[in-house]
């Protein structure tokens, strides 16, 4: 099967049936290893055991932006190449991205209370991630509000690309403005500043959560293709009955 074959929803469905069990298995194994390593990681000399929140907060925060990046590529696929699966991919990714963003916000808040003394601060990083979360919800509402899928796809694609402007703001907010949030410690010029005892579990968790996203995304895309098949069959049936 070539990449171009995946443009065919039926071929994509047959591929998902084959890869989903493997993806789910790999995700479960990697997350189990990650959670074990996170449990066994030493306490930080300043933060104590609360550093363990990092192992779930950071992967969710990365994925909150990564998923929007995937949706932005899919939006280009909708607007430029009119790829039949592009809107399916974007629509299926949105609720998963919203869930990751919600978890990044809440776990960050639960980490912030003992470390900063507050659950929330209206600084650039926290506010820009909250805006990202609201944009996810807005996009999901847009898809539900417009009845015609092709019109909804184009409107959602434009909104997704506009929303992508928020991604560099989130990434560089800790450098551009004074903020309570710490600067980047892993993806930065000069390499990670984290000790290996924290970096390795963090990277395992990051790969595990990324695989979780891929697994859920493929499964949600399969559902969306089936939903569109239901809709087209219902429309064909209605037009046959009207004729």
């Amino acid at each position: 099967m070539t990449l171009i074959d995946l443009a065919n929803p039926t071929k994509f469905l047959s591929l998902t049936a084959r890869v989903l069990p493997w993806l789910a298995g790999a995700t479960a194994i990697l997350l189990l290893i990650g959670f074990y390593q996170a449990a066994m990681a030493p306490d930080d000399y300043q933060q104590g055991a609360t550093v363990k929140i990092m192992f779930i907060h950071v992967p969710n925060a990365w994925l909150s932006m990564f998923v929007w990046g995937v949706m932005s590529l899919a939006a280009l696929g909708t607007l430029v190449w009119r790829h039949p699966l592009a809107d399916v991919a974007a629509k299926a990714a949105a609720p998963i991205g919203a869930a990751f963003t919600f978890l990044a916000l809440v776990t960050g808040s639960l980490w912030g209370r003992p470390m900063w003394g507050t659950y929330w601060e209206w600084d650039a990083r926290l506010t820009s991630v909250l805006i990202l979360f609201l944009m996810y919800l807005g996009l999901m509402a847009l898809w539900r509000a417009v009845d015609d899928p092709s019109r909804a796809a184009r409107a959602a694609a434009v909104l997704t690309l506009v929303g992508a402007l928020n991604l560099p703001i989130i990434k560089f907010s800790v450098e551009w403005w004074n903020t309570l949030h710490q600067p980047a410690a892993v993806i930065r010029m000069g390499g990670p500043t984290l000790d290996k005892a924290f970096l390795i579990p963090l990277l395992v968790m990051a790969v595990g959560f990324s695989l979780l996203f891929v697994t859920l995304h493929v499964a949600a895309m399969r559902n969306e293709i089936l939903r569109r098949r239901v809709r087209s069959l219902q429309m064909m049936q209605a037009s046959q009955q009207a004729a």
Partner: protein
Amino acid sequence: MTSLGPYASFIVTSYTLVAAVVVLLIIWIAFDYRLQKERLRELEASGATRRSGRQATDI
């Protein structure tokens, strides 16, 4: 495993919440799949066919 210290409730709440949301996502996607398959079966039973001639529930 080391002791979680004075902020154990924050750590446990974070991990519990992440696990709960991930499980909810999995349940929602699995439920949605069953729902769509059920709708396709109903359409197939009522005589609806795809343009390709294949059955509605064929993958």
